[in-house]
């Protein structure tokens, strides 16, 4: 078995070098949908990081006793258990947001990043690095979604976290709060980041 990479390496990889959204465009399905309001994005990201870190740690703890053939099923069950816990908690404490997020909380289960990290990293590494890896990848993912949500809420409603920040007489860009806005924003971010990395690598 190879040694797990050092902590700072894991963090650098997760946050930037292997950023799941910008480099692989993975796992955006369920989360992109809630980026029209910062509050929703925040809750969704917390849910994702919670599920991702704990699932990675659990998969890693169980890595030596999980039969190879059924590992995907075991991973799915672990992930869904954490999502259910998160769902019950937000239903109890912040019912309004839970209502607004609707089915998207449950869809964290099929978020490809979680499965991807379990398969690619947690399965072969001890629990602590796996936990850290989940945290770093989750944070990298959240950062990008925040960047999208800030632009969408600012231009779409003229607010940030519900507070009016745009001057009087600002016309909201309705397109930003609808689906195309999210696709365009993400497309543009991916474009910018790729162009920069290409220049940098030259």
């Amino acid at each position: 078995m190879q040694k797990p990479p050092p902590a700072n390496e894991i963090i650098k990889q997760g946050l930037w070098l292997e950023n799941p959204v910008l480099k692989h465009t993975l796992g955006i399905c369920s989360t992109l949908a809630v980026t029209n309001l910062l509050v929703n994005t925040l809750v969704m990201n917390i849910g994702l990081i919670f599920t991702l870190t704990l699932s990675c740690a659990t998969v890693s703890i169980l890595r030596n006793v999980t039969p190879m053939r059924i590992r995907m099923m075991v991973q799915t069950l672990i992930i869904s258990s954490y999502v259910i816990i998160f769902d019950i908690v937000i239903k109890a404490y912040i019912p309004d947001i839970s209502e607004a997020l609707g089915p998207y909380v449950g869809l964290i289960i099929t978020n490809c990043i979680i499965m991807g990290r379990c398969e690619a990293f947690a399965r072969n590494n001890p629990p602590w690095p796996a936990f850290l890896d989940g945290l770093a990848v989750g944070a990298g993912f959240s950062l990008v979604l925040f960047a999208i949500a800030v632009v969408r809420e600012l231009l779409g409603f003229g607010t940030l976290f519900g507070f009016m920040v745009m001057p009087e007489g600002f016309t909201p860009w309705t397109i930003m709060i609808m689906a195309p806005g999210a696709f365009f924003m993400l497309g543009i971010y991916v474009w910018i980041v790729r162009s920069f990395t290409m220049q940098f690598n030259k």
Partner: protein
Amino acid sequence: MTNIDPATLFFAAIFTNNILLTNFLGLCPYLSISRNLRSAFGLGAAVVFVMTFTAALNHLMYYQVLIPLKLDHLQYIIFIIIIAAFVQLVEMTVERYFPALYYILGIFLPLITVNCAILGASLFMVIREYTLIQSMAYGAGSGIGWMMAITAVGAIREKIQKSGMVPKGLEGPGITLLITGILSLAFMAFSGMIQIQ
């Protein structure tokens, strides 16, 4: 309980409430498999089939088993297990009895378990309280809507690839997302024709 005619629901799921273009579901396979028309179509067809039947199965499971037993908070786990089991079953059946079909769909079937659109359709069905018939109509409509979107993008990407005019940084997912945005805008023209929540 919503009283929408299943046929209306079917068309609404394709055009006005397209699961990919308005609800962002199933984006991962959409971005990675849409490189050419052929595979896009194969995956799309598999999704239509699986989505229709898992929506029905999950509906039966939810209302006949989970609600009477008061286990509805376990819906996520149960739904994902049903989807995984169904996909496995279909894969084995198709491989055994329809080798020609397996040749087209085979490699796409395992990918479907982790397609958020499938689980999404089942969750929407529970939240909007559809009946069994409505769920099947919604599942089939969503599947076809998804297939239309991925096929369209597959074809457009094939053309763009040949033109070779895309800036370097925009190649791959970047350009696909921008095209999807435009497609999504186009589909917004349908909104207002039929309204479902």
